[in-house]
């Protein structure tokens, strides 16, 4: 019951509610627990409620850290190969 994927807000439907797109599926959820969510934002939805907004910049930063892993490995391999 804890599994959830990020959902994109496509429409504010009033009274703290919004319609979101969950990988192609449209669903009505509540925004009552978050502040300042707008159309186009991605939110983490849990049992019908948005729990937090996703930060695009932070996401990019995390992806950059993943990519850096490849560089580390290459460097380590070179170090190992060096006499």
């Amino acid at each position, binding site marked *: *019951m*804890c*599994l*959830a*994927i*990020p959902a994109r807000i496509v429409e504010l439907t009033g009274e703290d509610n919004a319609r979101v797109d969950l*990988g192609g599926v449209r669903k009505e959820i*509540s925004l*009552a*627990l*978050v*502040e300042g969510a707008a159309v186009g934002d*991605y939110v*983490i939805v*849990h*049992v*019908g*409620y948005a*729990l*937090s*907004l*996703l*930060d*695009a910049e*932070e*996401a*990019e*930063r*995390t*992806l950059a*850290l*993943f*990519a850096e*892993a*490849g560089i*580390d*490995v290459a460097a*380590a*391999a070179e170090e190992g190969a060096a006499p």
Partner: protein
Amino acid sequence: MKYVDEFRDGALASKLAAAIRVEADPARNYAFMEFCGGHTHAISRYGVTDLLPANVRMIHGPGCPVCVLPIGRIDMAIRLALAENVTILTYGDCLRVPASNGQSMLKAKARGADIRMVYSAADALALAQREPERQVVFFAIGFETTTPPTALVIRQAKALGLANFSVLCNHVLTPSAIMTILESPEVRELGTVPLDGFIGPAHVSTVIGSRPYAFFAEEYRKPVVIAGFEPLDVMQAIRMLVRQVNEGRAEVENEFTRAVTEDGNRKAQALVSEVFELRRSFEWRGLREVPYSALKIRKAFAEHDAEARFGLAYQSVPDNKACECGAILRGVKKPTDCKIFGTVCTPENPMGSCMVSSEGACAAHYNFGRFRDIPVVAA
């Protein structure tokens, strides 16, 4: 950015795996507990274990809300439905959790109890409004993620003066569960469960923030890395834990910065403390009674507290003797250590709670991991 595919990229996964292999010291063993059932699910589903070197081991933790629900609490709901003729509403996973005498909510429903599944707390409240002639009880379970929605509907019910809606509260707290594991004799004295660090929960942390884990890092010298639910998140978190161990650090680090801040969701926290207070003690399946580990509804909302309204008392019931869920939830045993795993106990017919939800250790292993146990024999 869709926040999904980017975090499941196979090529990046093998790079991260290679980085972990390079960084893990072959002269030592690493054992990390993923606290949360969502991580257990991701690790099994994407085969993360297969990508790790043999000396980095993952231990499943007790962070699956259905798995830690003790039999006695489900008995309370069944009794209420059958004896008081109330309508019980709950999240789908609860229906199949084994209760006393081979019962479950689903079986009680077949015997005529009015027990229904809802997707959200809001649905439960709406149903009470739609059917004012029925007493409706929302059987609320979960960690810090499901608690704010429950708080919200209790407050709404009070504001609406909704006399036929109450909540049977089973909400539990993540930090107390982590603490119980760290204090358990297996970890502290016996050393039977080597534990070098934790992967901190994803969604729970969006609510409580990263701060509450600082205590574990400082007091118990265990590193904590909060991670998102995608496979690359989990692998990056493992890599960060390996680094901390190598460098002799025990800090709280946050891999899931795109959703988790230090403070968490203040709005949700304020709501929860308005409606709930700490319970002196609560029984967890597998961890027994844990002091101050759960929430109860404050007096101001007593009218919407099913325990107060129907005078319910809790009675502890021992688990099925063959079931090893308790030891599995404490990280002492693996699903395959249970004699009835995959034979008598399957997701279709669960004997223990770990086999019910797809986030439970036994169900996750049954669905995704059990074929790996069979050695491949070359023809």
